[in-house]
């Protein structure tokens, strides 16, 4: 009986892994997550972690809700890196850096930006966007495309 309880606790810990910073809520077409040098097929409900890179195919799109209620989505032919994410659910302090390598991105800022403007930054190959709120889109067309 005791080991069953331990097992249940472990299973719970696994589903709420401390590195999880967001969750895939919407998904269409081909989408994968690059994590620790591996290419994982993305699925609705899958957790997103710091250092993950979300990549969509020509038919793909994906939307992620983060711990502070920030919402990010990317359209077809896109690559987005979650460079850094931290959030304190008590104080709402945090830091969020994401990089759009190519394609299209939608951002709806969350609690950390409400608490401290520009706590969230979106990087592109040539610029940095400080987010004061709330909704915007970014498009990066790669050289030669």
């Amino acid at each position, binding site marked *: 009986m005791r080991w069953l309880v331990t097992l249940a606790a472990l299973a719970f810990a696994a589903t709420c892994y401390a590195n999880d910073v967001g969750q895939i809520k919407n998904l269409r077409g081909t989408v994968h997550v690059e994590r620790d040098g591996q290419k994982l097929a993305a699925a609705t409900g899958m957790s997103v972690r710091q250092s993950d890179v979300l990549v969509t195919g020509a038919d793909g799109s*994906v939307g992620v809700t983060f711990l502070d209620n920030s919402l990010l989505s990317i359209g077809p032919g896109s690559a987005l890196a979650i460079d850094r994410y931290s959030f304190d659910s008590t104080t709402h302090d945090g830091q969020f850096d994401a990089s759009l390598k190519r394609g299209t991105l939608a951002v709806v800022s969350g609690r950390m930006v409400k608490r401290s403007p520009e706590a969230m930054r979106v990087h592109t190959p040539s610029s940095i966007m400080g987010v004061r709120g709330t909704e*915007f889109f970014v498009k990066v067309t790669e050289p030669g495309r």
Partner: protein
Amino acid sequence: MVAVLAIMALVILFSQPSAPSPATELVVLVPSADGHTGAVVVEHGGKRTVLDQPYAANRIGRESGSARLTEGQVRSTFGPTAAAIPARPAAFLLYFVMGSDELTEESKGELARMLEELRRRPAPDILVIGHTDRVGSEEDNDRLSLQRAERVRANFVAQGIAAERIRAAGRGEREPVVQTADGVDEPRNRRVEINVR
């Protein structure tokens, strides 16, 4: 001679696009779901540009600078991206009959509407927090608040929402909406908060 030079210049000009073009970037601020427009500061080459008007845009590339897009242009460029934005996090309140985990008649109707909303979300995370008024002891209210939250959770599960996606917690009489003296029967404090994202 001049004509030959002019033609050569034209050839060079028009051959430019076949060379690898630099990356182009576009940022556009849009009004949020509640109609309010925020702001984004774009930093590029040591220069800061503030976008704070609806559909204000900044381009970097062959034609750099500020611009104003139309709603239609945003839709045609970002349609599939916008469609993939997750459902906005939402909060609901349900109220209870005094001293029980039975919902008020009005809240029973509200519960049905809420279930519709929950079902539209493919992978919802639901947090149900129960509260009480200040009638009865603190220990009884801790128990009752959790009982209320668990009852709502069980209702969601019975209606087909996956159990592992719902957490329930009780806060007793600690977080009233309306401050009252101890022992006061206050319907607005007998509630569960439901947060979904």
